[in-house]
């Protein structure tokens, strides 16, 4: 990508918007990078769907404990104050509205805030906890590349892949900027450095309302 954010910079944009003292679930894939980008002045408690509050960074090589893994089945650590619990309790936290934010990866997002991230279209689908998070978290953010590997838009007027949840996405972070959703339209809140309005519109499959004052100095 010639302009815009790297994956870690996208994650940093999302991490910078997390509020101190919140409970946050990070989806597998790109959202796991948010762990590495959390500002040190925020105490954010990370929830992992497999029964962990207080998920910490990966251990040193050789110190992996395969009973302590994240949603992507990768070894992690537990921070002081962390806890373990069953799946039933974990998803009660999710469905019951106890999580402040879920940050999901996605195949597609629509102008209405629909998200598609469980069915790749062809092949075997895998939903995991995505549908639970999409309707259960108080605020749902998506972190994804703005375009797919062939350059096609992933932000569309309507999702063409089967949806995970409808009208659930509150904020969208891509390599091109930060977006919100209002009145059925995609709203650009912030442009990544080196990205102009024409570029982001050109690479998006739906009309954009520009309100990109966030993040400007």
């Amino acid at each position, binding site marked *: 990508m010639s302009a815009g954010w790297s994956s870690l910079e996208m994650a940093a944009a999302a991490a910078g918007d997390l509020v101190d003292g919140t409970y946050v679930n990070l989806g597998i894939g790109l959202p796991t990078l948010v762990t590495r980008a959390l500002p040190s002045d925020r105490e954010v408690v990370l929830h992992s769907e497999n029964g962990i509050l207080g998920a910490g960074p990966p251990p040193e090589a050789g110190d992996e404990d395969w009973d302590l893994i994240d949603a992507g089945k990768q070894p992690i650590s537990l921070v002081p104050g962390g806890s373990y619990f069953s*799946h039933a309790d974990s998803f009660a936290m999710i469905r019951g509205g106890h999580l402040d934010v879920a940050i999901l990866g996605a195949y597609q997002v629509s102008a209405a805030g629909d998200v598609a991230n469980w069915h790749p279209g062809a092949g075997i689908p895998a939903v995991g906890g995505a549908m639970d998070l999409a309707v259960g978290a108080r605020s749902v953010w998506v972190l994804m590349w703005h375009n797919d590997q062939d350059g096609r838009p992933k932000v569309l007027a309507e999702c063409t892949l089967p949806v995970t949840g409808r009208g659930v996405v509150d904020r969208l972070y891509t390599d091109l900027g930060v977006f919100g959703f209002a009145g059925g339209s995609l709203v650009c809140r912030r442009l990544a450095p080196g990205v102009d309005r024409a570029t982001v519109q050109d690479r998006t499959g739906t009309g954009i309302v520009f309100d990109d004052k966030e993040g400007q100095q």
Partner: protein
Amino acid sequence: MNKVATDIPSAVADVGDGASILVGGFGGAGAPTALLEELAGRDLHDLTVIANNAGTGTTGLAALLASGAASRIICSYPRMRGSEIFEKLYSEGSIELELCPQGTLSERIRAAGAGIAGFYTRVAADTDLAAGRETRVIDGRLHVLETPLAADFALIRADTADRWGNLTYRKAARNFGPTMAMAGRVTVAETDRIVPLGDIDPELVVTPGIFVQRVVEVPS
């Protein structure tokens, strides 16, 4: 009362063709690998497996599937790195897949164990996963009716057991264990160790022994 099985084969000796089996674990954490591999070594057919994943590599659940024992699997996340055995069986049409959102899966299992005949949830409402299902608008929002998922057997892995079947777990290997233990008509736990009655602090028992029929010591 003594629920301690003398060895792995006797712990699952009554699992027969056509049985439904809840299989604990999230990935490899909490997977009852020894029990699954015991079943894989027998000539079983037409099992229904209920698990979060569909096995990876060649051990545990993947070994059971590779043996041809399962004709149906209910799970939330079958496709992941290393799930080649499931993918091959699925592409051949030799195993049927019912995909279920993870929290709905665990709550359906909990409902079975808790005597709840069903529940409405917003999860999956108005998506392809709930196509054709009974729905109801509650508080202005569309909900889907979900039904309980009981099974003939629940096979789980725990950390410490006693002869009454009280269990503790280790870290995030707890995952589906406590919930599945409630929903198996026969629940079998393989555990790192079996200790005398009273050695497990009652304040720390996670699964009370009433939910467990057999324990077998399988040190990791």
